[in-house]
């Protein structure tokens, strides 16, 4: 347990705990300490020595591996028929086994793996085993062992359509897990009782609006890009920028107190829809894995694009939660699934 993570809902502090630094953090520092100075004099490689390549660059979210074969990741013939009958760009996320007396979905999960600093991923062996048109979706898009981001239509078109054609939205619905932004109307969803998927089985329906996809700050693999809050070297202790634009870094504490704070806004829709796919039980801070990025033929500077992100990441720190971030109860007559609130995640690293 190292550093600290706070999760806020408005002015209410929901969670505050230490995190755990991974072995990747030590590897990053060893890499940084042994970068060859000669690279700075060679055209085309000098950008390898840019300090930003060795700092926190992304955050991602994960859940237990059992969640990836249940919940909205589950697919059978009846659900496939329903999903394939819907409009391509208004994905319906169908979940089942909802208790009829409630409209708050509790995902099927198991106990996640214990915190282990050796791990290089959030949760090992997270594979979606559903088949669409007799093709395993995991064979087309092998998950990076965390919650992925395939629902936006542009993501479907880019990564799934070449293999699944008109059924790409079905594959996207199986993979999940973050809704479209407000600019395209969000993502529609329905909760069903049982696995008949008929109109009579609908318990509650709605539309989730995603923050991360509205800002295009999350790539298809679920990495939320780090957004610099200000220009390095211009000022010290610069203020946090809008946390809806991605993972923001702040000099709030800065050099004077030897701490840095990373913060991001996880929209109500992001929390709600990801809950249908198993919820959020862990999260991680990532740096660029320079060696792997170079091996893949990509040299810095690395641009970030949600569809084509050339960066390879190294896990720096993780936070495992014992309670699902998407857990919610019905309140009076209001369905829990319709009552999600934005969450603010603050992650501080103390250096001095």
């Amino acid at each position, binding site marked *: 347990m*190292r*550093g*600290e993570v706070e999760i806020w809902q408005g002015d209410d502090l929901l969670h505050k705990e*230490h995190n755990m*630094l991974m*072995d990747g*953090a*030590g*590897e*990053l*520092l*060893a*890499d*940084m*300490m*042994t*970068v*060859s*100075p*000669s690279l*700075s004099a060679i055209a085309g490689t000098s950008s390898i*020595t*840019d*300090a*930003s*390549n*060795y*700092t*926190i660059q992304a955050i991602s979210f994960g859940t237990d591996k059992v969640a990836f074969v249940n919940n909205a990741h589950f697919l059978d013939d009846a659900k496939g028929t329903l999903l394939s009958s819907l409009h391509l760009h208004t994905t319906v996320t169908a979940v089942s086994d909802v208790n009829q007396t409630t409209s708050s979905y509790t995902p099927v999960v198991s106990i996640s793996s214990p915190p282990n600093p050796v791990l290089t991923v959030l949760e090992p062996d997270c594979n979606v085993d559903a088949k669409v048109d007799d093709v395993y979706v995991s064979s087309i898009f092998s998950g990076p062992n965390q919650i992925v981001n395939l629902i936006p239509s542009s993501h479907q078109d880019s990564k799934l359509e070449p293999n699944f054609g008109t059924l790409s939205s079905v594959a996207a619905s199986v993979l999940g897990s973050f809704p479209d932004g407000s600019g395209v109307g969000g993502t529609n969803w329905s909760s069903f009782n049982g696995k008949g998927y008929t109109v009579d089985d609908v318990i509650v329906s709605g539309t989730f609006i995603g923050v991360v996809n509205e800002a295009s700050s999350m790539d298809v693999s679920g990495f939320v890009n780090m957004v*610099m809050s200000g220009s*390095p*070297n211009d000022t*010290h*202790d610069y203020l946090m920028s809008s946390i809806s634009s991605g993972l923001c*870094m702040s*000099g709030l504490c*800065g*050099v004077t107190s*030897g*701490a*840095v704070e990373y913060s991001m806004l996880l929209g109500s829709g992001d929390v709600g829809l990801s809950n249908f796919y198993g919820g959020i039980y862990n999260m991680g801070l990532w740096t660029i894995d320079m060696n792997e990025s170079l091996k893949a033929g990509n040299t810095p500077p690395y641009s970030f694009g949600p569809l084509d992100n050339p960066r390879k990441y190294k896990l720096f720190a993780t936070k495992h939660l014992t309670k699902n971030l998407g857990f919610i109860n019905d309140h009076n007559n209001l369905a829990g699934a319709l009552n999600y609130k934005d969450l603010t995640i603050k992650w501080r*690293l*103390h*250096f*001095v």
Partner: protein
Amino acid sequence: MKNFTEELGINGHLTIIKKFTDGQEEVVFDDHNIIVSGMGVGLTYMFTGSGSNSVLDYQIDRFQLGVSGRATGVATDILEVSSTYQLSGALTAAEYGTGSNLFIDTRPQIINSTTVNSAAALIPANKRTKIADSSVRYTLVVDEEACNGIDRHGDDFHNSINEVGLLMKNPTGSSVDAPILVAYRSFSNIAKTSDFSLIFRWTLNF
């Protein structure tokens, strides 16, 4: 709450070897070192993006030797704490010796929120080696011609080398390199002569 370097478990190990001109080697010191607060300061500059834009400026590329680490009146472990920010009696540029292979660089060293010009010997890049996924070894060679004839107080006890430090190059991104002490260790007096060279094998585990 523990700070980052403590939580991360950054630690180090220092071995000092006397190497005589006939090739014989004698280990004179073999113990852990102290990671000082300057390491955290340097990393803060890097992770907040408020220091240098070049990762090379966050590298440990120089070292200092000193003579007061265990001088009279200095308890053996008084400097071996994370709050140490300078050597007790760092050598001057002249004391490193003019005939040695050491490249001495005098720069405004960051010392407790201010800077003071201090001399340090540069560590060539080929002497900074990654020996494991998260371990880096620094090999500091103080050759036969270096650091001989130090004369501070007129007696051998005060003219002996007994402290060493590693410095990060220039974390603030200053136009003139401003190094900062990141690791320190004092050791038993070694009266340096031209009969032997000193090899410091310093391994940092991140």
